[in-house]
């Protein structure tokens, strides 16, 4: 009995199709080293750990964030695990922004790890190995793009106490830097017909940097937003993207350049920025 988990919609793993059209234009070589990783080499039932995928990207190439921006495609991860194993959501590190003319994309360079928390039920037999099957597909882009896909298996022994793996320090380093919510920060978006006025308070004197919406289509990734304000209150205006209707609440990663860090903020939508405009308009 296996359970499938997907970070996006369910999909079938397909072998990369052979390119038959335009055969004389060769695809560039962009072969990342892709491996399955786990924070433990031996797991203990009832004690959660982390597992996922590591990409070592060729220089000059990037992989995408969950919102790829104006072009590109987010990597997809599907888990196939035994039924008494639970897989949480993929934990996405804060992305970088790659500007290309008027447009931009969001993603990562170098070594990228996307992991998720894994919980194995208490009743796991001590002599049974755990097999985590991970099917992933991705798009790498530099000045052109190359898709890739693979299936990985992470096999772990069961033990009374978990043992950290050689990848544990790198995984925990990533987890420590994940964008988290700060309770003091409050954010809202007031909508007009074409723009959203975003207000953020509670940054404790820090300057806000780029704001990455987790969902696509809220504002154009290529738009260079400018923050106004000082100290505890900052605001910016973004043009509305294609997403309709604008959600009641959106999550976004806010860079804090002075800290070299990023926070996750919840932006609450306040509608009717000019509630009397209709009545007063001719």
């Amino acid at each position, binding site marked *: 009995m296996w359970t499938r988990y997907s970070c996006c919609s369910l999909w079938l793993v397909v072998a990369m199709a052979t390119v038959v059209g335009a055969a004389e*234009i060769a695809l560039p070589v962009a072969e990342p080293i892709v491996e399955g990783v786990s924070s433990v080499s031996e797991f203990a039932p009832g004690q959660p750990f982390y597992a996922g995928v590591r990409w070592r990207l060729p220089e000059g190439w990037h992989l995408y964030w969950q919102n790829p921006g104006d*072009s590109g495609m987010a990597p997809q991860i599907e888990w196939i695990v035994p039924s008494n194993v639970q897989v949480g959501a993929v934990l996405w590190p804060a992305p970088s922004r790659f500007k*290309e003319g008027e447009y931009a994309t969001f993603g990562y360079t170098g070594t990228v790890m996307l992991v998720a928390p894994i919980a194995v039920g208490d009743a796991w037999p001590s002599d049974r190995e755990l097999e985590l099957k991970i099917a992933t597909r991705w798009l790498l882009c530099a000045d052109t793009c190359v898709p890739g896909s693979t299936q990985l298996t992470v096999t772990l022994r069961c033990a009374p106490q978990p043992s950290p793996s050689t990848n544990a320090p790198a995984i925990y380093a990533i987890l420590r830097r994940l964008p988290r919510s700060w309770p003091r920060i409050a954010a809202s978006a007031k909508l007009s017909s074409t723009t959203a006025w975003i207000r953020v308070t509670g940054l404790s004197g820090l300057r806000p940097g780029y704001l990455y919406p987790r969902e696509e289509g809220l504002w154009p990734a290529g738009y260079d937003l400018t923050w106004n304000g000082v100290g505890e209150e900052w605001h910016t205006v973004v043009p509305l993207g*294609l997403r309709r209707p604008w959600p009641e609440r959106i999550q976004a990663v806010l860079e804090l350049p002075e800290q070299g860090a990023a926070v996750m903020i919840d932006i609450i939508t306040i509608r009717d920025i000019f509630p009397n405009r209709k009545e007063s308009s001719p």
Partner: protein
Amino acid sequence: MKRQIGVLTLLAMMGAKLVLGGAVPGQDAPAFQAVDIEGKGLALSDFKGKYVVLEWYNPGCPFVRKWYQNGDMQKLQRELTSQGVVWITINSSAPGKQGHLTPPQWKELVVKNNSAATHYVADEKGDIGRAYGAQTTPHMFVIGPDGKLLYAGAIDSKPSTDPGDIMGATNYVRRALEEAKAGKPVSVPQTKPYGCSVKY
């Protein structure tokens, strides 16, 4: 009140910067003139009275290959041009940038791919691409006989590089044309395009 004035001032200040380029469904499609790879001059206004499809193209992009490698784009080109639709394939890769093709290279590719567009236009300066706000390859635009833009966005509803996804997806270009020809409003006039970035 004070806060609202602040917001108004801010919006007014930023207004100029917030106007994004690009063609907007319901409005006149941006006019353009070009010379196709056969050396033939053309203008959008030449096709008044006809439906026009614009396809942004880059031969090295895997999202474009998804549509060409099994002949799906070529089939769609044949299906629509046989109904009188004018199909213009546009490459906005600048010289020296990935995907740029000289007219002879592109002519050879048209034969190899068995493409069936009406015209192929090398938009080397990117003027047509910027006027339309073409941001990916493919990025599709459908223009009505009155010159108004009917549709802008993705070719279909499944953003992927897998040709196997084409069959089960909704083709927004075909649907926009079918609805417009039946005298109905286009139900989905704009979507987020998917693909590689345009190499302006």
